[in-house]
């Protein structure tokens, strides 16, 4: 390592003032620990942190500031899903204040609760619930204070935008902030504070706009990518040519003399350059890359044998198994089986992952778009052998991530490099190729389905065999999940993949089938995998809802009627009927050939979503066009219908892209999907018209919705293609050449 450079000293205070993310001038809240929720397959275990205050303090979630504003605090991160607006709406509603008084602080280990990951569509259900309770508690206490102050019973009080007054005497009034007169509103959340009756809602349920969009449209400082700290330097990491490669030599001497280069860092097979300017770092990286010599790792197995290799795994865990399933299937009047496959897919964020880190006075500060600031802190502490109290991890929005992408890895890169250059904020951004080749992918999957029909055309038994690599390798405290850590001189071992709860997500049918079996077979594949939006549910629902169509054909029934016949769940029926109505199913399914429908309740416990698709197929030109998607979603109580629509539209379009175009390719040494040419995604010309119908249920609890569209959309498209072409497409992505060569 070279240390032969001089830089002007950085005044930490000055940048504390200048850095937008740190400009939040109020007291640091005690860090608290929420009860860990490990039900989700994409949440790696996190060690308990005894001795921390509980999540039951009001001021862990809500703070009223002297200047007449309200600050909401959440451990969740804004990922483009609009969570900030939705959580502020929930707080403002219970508190009876206007939205423009409310601001929000997201994921930051210095001041927000430990809510682990922003994942699994749980933010509204978990953080939202806590914030709502805290706001209701604050509201109740403030009314008690007002009661004393005004001498009026609280039932006789009315709150308008934070001003409490007697119902019959508007002269007697006092504001929340006057009541507190500069003091903090602290205390425990008793859980006894009454929640507002949904029929009285004025903000929740309204399509309030996300205010930050104008910033995005005018070049405001929105993303971690836009942060500029005084004295900031730029780094790029030299990633190996393939997964198992080890670094032999780099042209350290030559590169360290290049213009602007401050340092060439090498630690085992991890190498990087730090330079004054961003483009200098990129030029230095190019020079490193051109002359670095590597020893290749073990060859990757042939991609065209992947699915056979997966199905060779015999070991399996029964997720659910009726005793009589074997017999039921064997004795059914009609039996059918089919195998579905899904390739590896990538998150492919538009903005390559980026992080900033500063090592100073024995403390490390990291700015990151990670989905889990606390788990990341623990993992980095493990990697650098630091006490986690020495590390602050501050969440700053990034480009959409759709799951566990390179966010944590680039933060680890930045941490390592900052550690090697004390006193200077180091900004690292991945190159496009880094993002495409090194992020953890959504696992390839094989789904083998079998079902039997009775004489009346009802399904009597349903069997699903799943093969998948893990959908959950988030760094939950172990350094081994961080990419850089695997390549250090003393490498951290990458924990094994294979079985995770996400593999069988949504494999159990919600339909009323008498006998069901679902078996999950763990597979450790050639590529790095982790949580991609909806995890296994994308392929499981694609298979389940495609196979449902196949069974309808076998039973000679309309696919919609066939589904309804097997579905007693009222909310499931309602979304199916709404989507069908939205596309004019009854009339069009007779005339129009390219119509398909599919449905699921995400995780069998979150939002209900049904979608109808229209495709057109031109036999002559073999052109396939997805024309229209109409979705219907029931996410329980809708906090913000426009936000819900926006996210669901996005999910539908993204799923259409996965389904029609995307697959990661690799040769025997490396991933060959290295950029947008070799990994194309849907473009404007191919984008369907989309419509989302919201079935609001104000009286019911809100349900997570962000991933609900992924699986059903894939199946609806496949089902529509079947009707348009007569070909049952079971191998994703569904491309025109596969349609042509499909003999079925």
């Amino acid at each position: 390592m070279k240390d032969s450079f001089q830089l002007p000293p950085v005044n930490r205070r000055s940048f504390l003032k200048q850095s937008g993310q740190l400009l939040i001038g109020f007291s640091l809240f005690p860090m608290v620990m929420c009860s860990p929720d490990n039900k989700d397959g994409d949440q790696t275990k996190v060690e308990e942190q005894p001795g921390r205050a509980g999540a039951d303090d009001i001021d862990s979630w809500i703070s009223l500031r002297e200047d007449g504003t309200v600050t909401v605090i959440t451990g969740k991160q804004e990922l483009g899903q609009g969570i900030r607006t939705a959580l502020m709406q929930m707080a403002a509603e219970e508190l009876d204040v206007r939205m423009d008084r409310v601001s929000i602080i997201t994921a930051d280990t210095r001041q927000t609760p430990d809510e682990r990951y922003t994942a699994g569509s749980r933010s509204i259900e978990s953080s939202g619930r806590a914030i709502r309770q805290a706001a209701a508690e604050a509201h109740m206490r403030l009314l008690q204070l007002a009661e004393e102050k005004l001498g009026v019973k609280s039932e006789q009080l009315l709150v308008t935008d934070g001003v409490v007054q007697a119902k019959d005497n508007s002269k007697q009034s006092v504001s929340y902030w006057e009541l507190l007169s500069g003091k903090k509103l602290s205390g425990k959340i008793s859980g006894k504070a009454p929640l507002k009756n949904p029929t009285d809602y004025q903000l929740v349920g309204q399509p309030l706009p996300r205010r930050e969009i104008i910033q995005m449209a005018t070049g405001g400082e929105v993303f971690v990518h836009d942060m500029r700290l005084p004295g900031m330097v730029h780094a790029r990491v030299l990633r190996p040519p393939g997964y198992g490669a080890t670094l032999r030599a780099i042209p350290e001497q030559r590169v360290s003399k290049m213009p602007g280069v401050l340092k060439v860092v090498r630690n085992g097979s991890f190498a990087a350059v730090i330079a004054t300017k961003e483009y200098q770092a990129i030029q230095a990286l190019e020079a490193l890359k051109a002359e670095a010599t590597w020893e290749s790792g073990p060859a990757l197995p042939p991609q065209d044998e992947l699915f056979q290799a997966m199905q060779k795994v015999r070991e399996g865990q029964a997720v659910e198994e009726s005793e009589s399933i074997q017999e039921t299937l064997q004795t059914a009047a009609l039996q059918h089986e089919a195998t579905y496959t899904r390739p590896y897919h990538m998150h492919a964020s538009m903005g390559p992952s980026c992080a900033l880190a500063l090592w100073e006075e024995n403390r490390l500060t990291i700015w990151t778009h990670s989905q889990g600031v606390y788990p990341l802190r623990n993992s980095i502490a493990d990697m650098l052998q630091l006490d986690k109290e020495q590390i602050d991890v501050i969440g700053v929005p990034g480009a959409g991530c759709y799951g566990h992408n390179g966010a944590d890895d680039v933060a680890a890169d930045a941490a390592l490099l900052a550690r090697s250059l004390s006193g200077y904020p180091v900004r690292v951004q991945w190159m496009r190729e880094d993002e495409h080749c090194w992020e953890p992918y959504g696992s390839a999957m094989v789904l083998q389905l079998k079902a039997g029909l009775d004489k009346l055309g009802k399904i009597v038994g349903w069997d699903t065999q799943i093969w998948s690599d893990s959908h959950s390798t988030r760094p939950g405290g172990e350094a081994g999940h961080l990419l850089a850590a695997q390549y250090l001189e003393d490498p951290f071992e990458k924990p094994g993949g294979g079985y995770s709860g996400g593999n069988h997500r949504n494999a159990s049918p919600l339909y009323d089938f008498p006998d069901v079996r679902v078996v999950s077979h763990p597979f450790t594949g050639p590529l790095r995998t982790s949580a991609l939006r909806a995890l296994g549910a994308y392929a499981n629902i694609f298979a389940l809802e495609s196979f449902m169509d196949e069974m309808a054909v076998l039973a000679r029934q309309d696919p919609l009627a066939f589904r309804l016949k097997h579905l007693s769940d009222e909310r499931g029926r309602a979304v199916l009927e709404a989507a069908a109505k939205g596309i004019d199913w009854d009339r069009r399914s007779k005339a129009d050939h390219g119509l398909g429908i599919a449905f699921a309740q995400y995780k069998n416990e979150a939002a209900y979503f049904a979608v109808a698709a229209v495709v057109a197929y031109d036999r002559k030109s073999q052109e396939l066009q997805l024309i229209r998607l109409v979705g219907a979603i029931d996410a329980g109580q809708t906090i913000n219908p426009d936000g819900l629509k926006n996210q669901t539209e996005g999910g539908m379009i993204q799923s259409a892209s996965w389904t029609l175009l995307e697959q990661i390719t690799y040769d025997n040494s490396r991933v060959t999907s290295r950029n947008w040419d070799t990994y194309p995604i849907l473009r404007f010309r191919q984008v369907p018209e989309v419509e989302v119908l919201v079935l609001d249920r104000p009286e019911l609890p809100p349900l997570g919705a962000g991933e609900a569209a992924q699986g059903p959309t894939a199946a609806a498209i496949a089902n529509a293609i079947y009707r348009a072409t007569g070909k049952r497409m079971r191998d994703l992505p569904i491309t025109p050449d596969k349609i042509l060569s499909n003999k079925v």
Partner: protein
Amino acid sequence: MSQQFRLNINGRQVSVTADKNTPLLYILRDDLQLNGPKYGCGIAQCGSCMILVNGEARTSCVMPVSAVGNAKITTLEGIGTAEKPHPLQLAFQEEQAAQCGYCLNGMVITAKALLDQQASPGIDEIKEGMNRVLCRCGTHSRILKAVQRAAGTSNKG
């Protein structure tokens, strides 16, 4: 070797010192501290880095600073600000046409060039004009609505 370049950015003359091969993107972001143009791919495939060069939408990630010359460069910041947004930028806010928003620079810049050339394009012309800019969040339908709103063609097919 570093050289001095005089550039016309958002109506102002600025001078920067850089290697002549430096793509304009890095001059804008790193030297001039502009946030609009974004790095997405660096190889003219995604449109995140779009700028207007004499009114035409171009990818700044592959344009060396030495090739800029006297051209008038406009970035997202030069079109309007949050306080005084251009109607096109306002249309994105009004249609809530963003999820993560990382692609918005490319979208607004490309739409601006399109609308300046063709006052009221139809939906297919907008799709065609915007086709080279990628969005991973799937916000396309709203972005189309925003452009239509700005063009005053919201009801045209």
